[in-house]
């Protein structure tokens, strides 16, 4: 029997983790117990920023990462973090297909293989005060937790603020931050509704979590077990995308139930944010060069 470890940074109750746990048990069943995958949720084994290199170095055979987190390393990892490039599940799926060949090639160079991805629900804006246009965000304290959200803040004139995830609720309670951009699920998980009462469902982008695999570990398996892994991964991807879609609505409902006002963004806000997206796309294309252009071209053709 071969034993693999799969570290992930999210708690066991998160739908990504539930999906992964299902994947692990599918693999065990399909391989007739020959491959056992232990899922280490909650950053119990490795913390989020360490997971990719842990898989690369063979300290874990599998690992789940948020792709956009690695944009600093390679711009293409951030393709699904560009506002309004792909703003629906269909579009996100197309972008994924366009992105996939380059992604797979890059990961293969690093001794990794992409098993599957699952998106987070679309990103919206949480704001303490109502906003009807980007101008209303001027000077607002905005949590900039990633290069992309920091850039959005700069472009709309908000004041980017660095606050760690662990201090999020206290920072919201004391007004250290008044606004940030994330998915409905993050807003619910972090109990944002206790402090911030407006959610603007801008559906700006759908960042993806990816499950990566160490190539050497995979090659060491026999053919039937390899097939079992790939088959379970394909199923997990299908299941995960469906789940994510379903969860989007659920989370919006949950936010509403907890007193969050869900707003459809005004036309002005939409137009302003679109402009932000265009600028960021342009900047991203400059940084990512011909590789990025090829992905965007392929995506636009789909």
């Amino acid at each position, binding site marked *: 029997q071969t*034993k693999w*470890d799969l570290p992930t940074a999210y*708690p*066991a*109750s998160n739908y990504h983790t539930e999906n992964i746990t299902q994947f692990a048990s599918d693999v065990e069943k399909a391989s007739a117990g020959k491959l056992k995958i*232990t899922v*280490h*949720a*909650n*950053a*119990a*084994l*490795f*913390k989020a*920023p*360490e997971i990719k*290199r*842990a898989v690369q*170095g*063979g*300290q874990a055979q599998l690992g789940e990462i948020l792709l956009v987190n690695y944009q600093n390393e390679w711009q293409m990892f951030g393709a699904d973090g560009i506002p309004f490039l792909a703003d629906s599940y269909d579009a996100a799926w197309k972008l994924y297909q366009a992105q996939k060949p380059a992604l797979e090639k890059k990961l293969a160079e690093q001794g990794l293989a992409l098993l599957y991805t699952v998106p987070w629900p679309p990103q919206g804006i949480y704001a303490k005060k109502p906003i009807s246009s980007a101008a209303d965000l001027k000077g607002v304290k905005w949590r900039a937790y990633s290069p992309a959200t920091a850039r959005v803040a700069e472009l709309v004139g908000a004041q980017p603020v660095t*606050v*760690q*995830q*662990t*201090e999020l*609720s*206290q*920072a919201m*309670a*004391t*007004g*250290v931050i008044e606004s940030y951009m994330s998915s409905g699920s993050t807003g619910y*998980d972090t*109990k944002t509704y*206790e402090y911030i009462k407006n959610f603007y469902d801008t559906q700006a982008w759908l960042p993806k979590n990816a499950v990566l695999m160490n190539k050497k570990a995979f090659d060491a398996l026999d053919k039937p077990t390899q097939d079992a892994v790939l088959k379970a991964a394909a199923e997990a991807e299908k299941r995960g995308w469906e789940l994510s879609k379903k969860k989007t609505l659920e989370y919006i409902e949950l936010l509403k139930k*907890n*007193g969050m006002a869900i707003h459809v963004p005004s036309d002005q806000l939409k137009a302003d944010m679109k402009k932000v997206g265009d600028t960021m796309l342009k900047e991203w294309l400059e940084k990512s060069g011909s590789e990025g252009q090829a992905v965007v071209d392929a995506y636009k053709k789909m």
Partner: protein
Amino acid sequence: MNDVAMAALLIATLFLILGSGVWIGLTLSGVAWIGMQLFSSRPAGDAMAVTIWGSASGWTLTALPLFLWMGEILFRTRLSQDMFKGLAPWMQSLPGRLLHTNVVGCAVFAAVSGSSAATCATIGKMSLPELKRRGYPDNMVIGTLAGAGTLGLLIPPSIIMIVYGVSADVSISKLFIAGVVPGLLLGLLFSGYIMFWALRHPDQVPPADLRMSFGAKLRASLSLIPVALLILAVLGSIYTGFATATEAAAVGVVGALIISAAQGSLSWTNFREALLGATRLYCMMALILAGAAFLTLSMGYIGLPRHLAEWIASLGLSQFQLVVMLAAFFIVLGCFLDGISVVVLTMGVVMPTVIAAGIDPLWFGIFVVLVVEMAQITPPVGFNLFVLQSMTGRDLLYIARVTLPMFFLMVAAVLIIYFVPQLVTWLPRQMAP
């Protein structure tokens, strides 16, 4: 090899290396290394380096060295004498007299700091020399300090509550509020114990200073102003949103420097000594934290805590049995791992069982914090014990022994909140939903 034999072998190795006098942080790394090499198929070295780097460079830890530094600066001012001058007249009449400053000091500082080690070190820096000078017996001074230092976790802000809140999906602000009453309860238990001890050992309590009139007492209290201002500044910075709970430690360092300058004790020598002292104290703890992080990783790979938790979940226990069983389980794990590691390693398995048994996750969070507080003072791996060993030079086992009564008081606190859960849940329920 089965889990029991594996655990026995690792624990035996731990005691062997630790007992032979190898530095504690290195011992933990050594046991982690042996565990990984023997019981998991993963190479230990690279994983060790990655995980130690991750834990040593994490933002949430930055409050610890800064609070240690603050303590070292204050230690070199008149602040501790002043504090005692101001508090003594009021505590003279209580049985146990100035021993209560440990409890009161820790409870107040707990409202500033999120960590138990920082609370213990800061208050200890001020109260240890002062209480010793006045002739209070070592065992009570050290024991109450080690115990009261753990209040840093129960009284908000608290790092462990944040960790629990994230992994168990419980509102962190509700947890913070829920910790207040049990924190005060535990403080009262500690103070009650001091009085009980003092009444039984009147000969060991140093005599009271001169009796003072009420007016004189008030005048003496004026010397509390600097310390009150410092605490007000740190607390105020958190609750007005000027600084986050982690950043507040930096406010504390600046405040301590200002007090030091105002009292005329901010010489270059004093500054340098305080800085180097804090660097060494933090370094001592960093080595242990590094070892603890690696041991946690090793346990994650081997799966011992997870298997135990799964086993407990499979027993089908009643609510009370489950609470008792989990308390025992966390206490045993807490002897060998630090509290945060215990929570991270087991919550995923434990939480579903807890919810299925109908236990309120908010209440369970306070229960976990209390049990994790115990882990701070149980040997061989207890961070408050380490802090006090470093500050007093006494042996670890001596410190653990004199702290034992505080451990039993915490067990009592767990029982009290089990039978009167409103102590935990009443205050947060008063919040708007």
